[in-house]
């Protein structure tokens, strides 16, 4: 049975597309077949992050309009066999697609791939409705910021009302130093508020931005980095593996704070 997962957040710019591309690459590398669906009509950029922009010929809209077959619109990844992308049209608005149409496409993809991962646009309007139409489970991406968490909470409520209750949380762009200085919400704070299960924590790291700009998912780099390990671990947990969480706080801890904690201070 294939799995249909929507990556969503409510708030924009928190890392949905980054998560989608890295998870897709990590899953494909471990031997799964993966179709990534860009549901961000009008502002597509999943193709950019995957470095596949120049290979895009058709989009989901062309499939819906009967201009091409679904298989023709799928862009094959240049590095990984088993990874394909269904691009979104850039020149149309989000209103040009209906949830039922989206569902038809995704259900068709589910016949041929182990994982269908849908990259959702920001917001909770039509684009969101389209992206969640076929989803059976959801990955909520949030940064440890009050506004992002508030939006994540809202989105979780909407997903639950639609009957999607297999919901996992990714906390992205954590800065352990700031958490320690009480300047940023901790992962525990976020979890306590949202009340859904955690599937991964990704630290804030420049290398994520560098990889984004190069169009190469970070998880595919030769020398591994903390964020790359974090993304890979999320992919493993998705597949049911029990992987211990990286302890960014411990890595950041210095002797003094450890002594202080020993004395309960």
């Amino acid at each position, binding site marked *: 049975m294939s799995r249909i997962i929507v990556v969503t957040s409510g708030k924009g710019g928190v890392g949905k597309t980054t998560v989608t591309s890295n998870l897709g690459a990590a899953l494909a590398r471990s031997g799964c077949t993966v179709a990534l669906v860009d549901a961000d009509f009008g502002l597509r950029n999943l193709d950019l992050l995957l470095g596949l922009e120049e290979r895009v010929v058709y989009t989901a809209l062309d499939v819906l309009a009967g201009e091409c077959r679904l298989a023709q619109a799928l862009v094959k990844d240049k590095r990984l066999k088993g990874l394909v992308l269904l691009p979104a049209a850039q020149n149309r608005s989000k209103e040009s697609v209906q949830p039922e149409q989206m569902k038809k496409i995704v259900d068709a993809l589910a016949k041929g791939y182990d994982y269908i991962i849908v990259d959702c646009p920001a917001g909770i309007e039509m684009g969101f409705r389209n992206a969640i139409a076929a989803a059976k489970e959801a990955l909520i991406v949030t940064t440890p910021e009050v506004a992002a968490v508030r*939006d994540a*909470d*809202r989105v*979780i*409520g909407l997903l*639950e009302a639609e*009957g999607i209750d297999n919901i996992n949380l990714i906390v992205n762009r954590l800065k352990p130093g700031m958490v320690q200085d009480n300047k940023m919400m901790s992962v525990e704070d976020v979890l306590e*508020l949202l*009340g859904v299960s955690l599937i991964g924590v990704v630290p804030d790291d420049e290398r994520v931005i560098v990889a984004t700009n190069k169009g190469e998912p970070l998880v595919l780099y030769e020398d591994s980095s903390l964020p790359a390990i974090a993304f890979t671990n999320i992919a493993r947990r998705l597949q049911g593996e029990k992987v211990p969480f990286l302890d960014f706080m411990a890595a950041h801890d210095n002797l003094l704070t450890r002594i202080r904690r020993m004395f309960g201070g």
Partner: protein
Amino acid sequence: MTSESTFSIDITDDSLSPPLVARYSQVLLKSEGEKLLLILPTEQEMKLNLIPWSEVWQELKHHLQGKEQSWQAGSSVSLIARDQLLDARQLHKIAETLSEVELGLEWVYTSRRQTAVAAAAAGYSVEQQSSHPQSLVGVAEETKSLVLEEPLYLQNTIRSGVEVRHRGTIIVLGDVNPGGAAIAAGDIFVWGRLRGIAHAGAQGNRQCRIMALQMEPKQLRIADMVARAPKFLPDHVEPEVAYVTSEGIRLAKAMDFAKTHSYSKEVEGWKDSF
């Protein structure tokens, strides 16, 4: 350390008074004898209050989840659609939602011919309102009266963006998150953390109280009074109750409240009976 100074909310802004609330749950679920009645708002009620269908929908789901244990699996439901235009798809969605909590849609009462036709075509028993049984009309009308409804029992967290309104007492078995709101004509009990907005006695009853296992609200409202949250949270948490006194809204330990406080009609507030 007196309980007043530890627990009182630091600012009670009397210049602010919240609007009293006249609008409540749009959807009602009632049992009448063997039958369950699902009552929809009228078209006019929805238009007047600018309520979109999606909201009616979310409310219906809340009601169903909250009351799940109050009926037997397989019970049949009569839909009181009033003057709503429902097509086959909407009827199907309602039936599907009911079936998730093991209820079956059986009867559809409507005053609209199109709805009656769609319902009949979908295989439901239909009755147009002209021949509406007296008892059912009675129930639908009664919802307009000032008498409080039975408590609304919610078994999930009220998340950001969700506002639950009920013409009665609200019991939340979960949290009220920041950005969420519970608005009740009666009392509000939160069996969890209260971090959003709670408005008890929303029709003007100052006797109503708000209780929470953990009080961290952005704002508390009781009847026509507002209190903002204290800047500093107490370092230990315990169940607290918010109530109206002659000086504004105050907090006290929930444990002793019933024994130590009584309501005074003259001052329109609660008094410490010691």
